[in-house]
């Protein structure tokens, strides 16, 4: 049963990722990304990381994907003539396909070789706790307090930077 669910989510994640790669329609790609992220969230649940799965859904599906779709909708199409036949087409062609393909396939093979030969420290251990939220909260407030605080500075820097870059100071 568990194995079947695992394969289902894995297929969901990988299949929609391949679809993103092949489709020419930007909107379809955005929706396929949604399915892919849901698949990954399902895999997180299966490995006992419930909090991570919820965060994944909230941040990526709730935030980033909506942003992407708004981005597509608000971007002007450069060429108005073929609007009706091909909405949201990706107009650019990929170049240097041979080297790109060689590089990605070799990276893929290296990573596959690494992961199949790897001995994970935590593999094979049964998942004991029902939920990880309590542990996460306690750890964030005790042993990982400094990263937690410093992440606040990172967010502040990003906020100031975004506000600064978005500020329109044209004389008119």
């Amino acid at each position: 049963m568990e194995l079947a669910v695992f394969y289902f989510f894995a297929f969901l994640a990988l299949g929609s990722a391949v679809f993103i790669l092949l489709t020419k329609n930007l909107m379809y790609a955005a929706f396929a990304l949604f399915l892919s992220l849901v698949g990954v969230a399902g895999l997180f649940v299966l490995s006992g990381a419930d909090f991570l799965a919820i965060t994944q859904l909230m941040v990526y599906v709730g935030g980033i994907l909506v942003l992407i779709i708004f981005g597509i909708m608000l971007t002007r199409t450069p060429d108005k003539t073929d609007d009706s036949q091909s909405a949201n087409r990706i107009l650019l062609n990929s170049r240097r396909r041979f080297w790109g393909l060689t590089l990605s396939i070799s990276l893929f093979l290296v990573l596959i070789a690494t992961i199949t030969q790897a001995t994970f420290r935590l593999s094979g251990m049964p998942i004991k706790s029902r939920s990880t939220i309590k542990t996460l909260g306690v750890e964030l407030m005790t042993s990982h307090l400094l990263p937690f605080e410093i992440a606040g500075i990172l967010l502040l820097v990003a906020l100031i930077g975004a506000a600064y870059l978005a500020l329109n100071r044209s004389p008119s």
Partner: protein
Amino acid sequence: MYPIVLLSVLGIVVLYLGFLKSKSILLPATLLFLVVAMIGNFFEWNDGELLYFKGMFAVNKLTLTFNAIVLFSAFMIVAMTQGFQDNEEAQPAEYFALMLFSLVGAFMMIGFENLIMLFLGVEILSVAMYVLTGSDKRNLRSNEAALKYFLMGAFATGIMLFGIALLYGASGSFSLNGIESFVTLNQRSPSYLLYAGLLLVLIGMLFKVSAAPFHFWTPDVYDGAPSIFTAFMATIVKTAGFAALFRLLSHSFSGIYDFWWPTLSILTVLTLLVGNIIAVYQDSFKRMLAYSSISHAGYLLIALTSMTKQTENAILFYSMAYSFATICAFGVLIPVAREKSLEGRPNESYEAFNGLAKNNPLLAFVLTVSMLSLAGIPLTAGFWGKFFVFSSAVERELVWMIIVAVLMSAVGIYYYFRVIMAAYMKEGDTATIRIAPFYKIVLIAATLLTILFGLAPGLFEAAM
């Protein structure tokens, strides 16, 4: 630890100071805050080895010295900004706050004891740099540079994060000590996961310090960014990046030296060749400085590859000498380029320096000393930097690497002397450039320090 807390709080104070009507208080306030952080930095000087927050962050004499170099460079660069007085649209509060926060990131990279801290430090520094690169919003090249830097930097960060995840998968720990004990326990039976993780983290970090073949963003970004932030990027990001690399390799991964030194040595030689040879063909002084920063990353990598007892000292001294000389070079470039501006944009080509020495002897002298130091001519700090780097490589018997490095230093002399020739020998008329007194003091101080450490490099070790 004090400078981190101080600068985090004082950065917010700077933001609030931006509400005041008069912007002229911001520059002195920021300089004062940097001095306060510098004093706070030395509070822990005599405390030996300290660990903070359950082994998240370490403080020792080495990290404090790196902090001091970074703070001093930042002080000089902030002093050269002139408070952006000539630009009525500028928002100095944001610039200064971002600079102070980015220093927090640099301190995190210098003293991290846990890979999470390394990641956060790299991110804080990078995000601040992306914004500062694009701060000249009217300039298309600045916009292009910011976007390029952001996209490539995001990829590099992703690769580094993947590497950290693999390291965690292999060793079950994020802390440097945990990884170190795993490495020493499993020295006989190598874990491929650990190797792959280390390589990916190295790629991410080498991108940040612009070592070949991860250098391709450097020329465009350094060229497009406003000069003052290019100086910031070329000195502080590089110093912090090499401090982080040294910490990672000397601390956690010294047990598998045999694995990473061949990889790193190939990249070192590649960086030296790419940086120096392409720099020869540049017509823009600023772009040449970008390639020169790549080549200096190569020299620092030599020290890292040899990883002997001298390495620590060599990296410290080299990054200090390089920072001072680079700040001087940009400090001369900014007023000269503004004086000679073409079509409203600063002229950063070699021609702008023609005949500089006639009416501006001080600027020409500062430029000469900084170029001599970057080229590694004796009696400047740069010479001793290269000397320490080479001697650590000699100890490891990496002779072929030194041969490449010496050849490339000879190539370097050609392009560094081109601008000196332009300033002294070429015909040209540059009116006397008016420089603010404080700016002048910074230039003179950095030049004097370059000469002082060139005459007596032992002073630096004595201070340690």
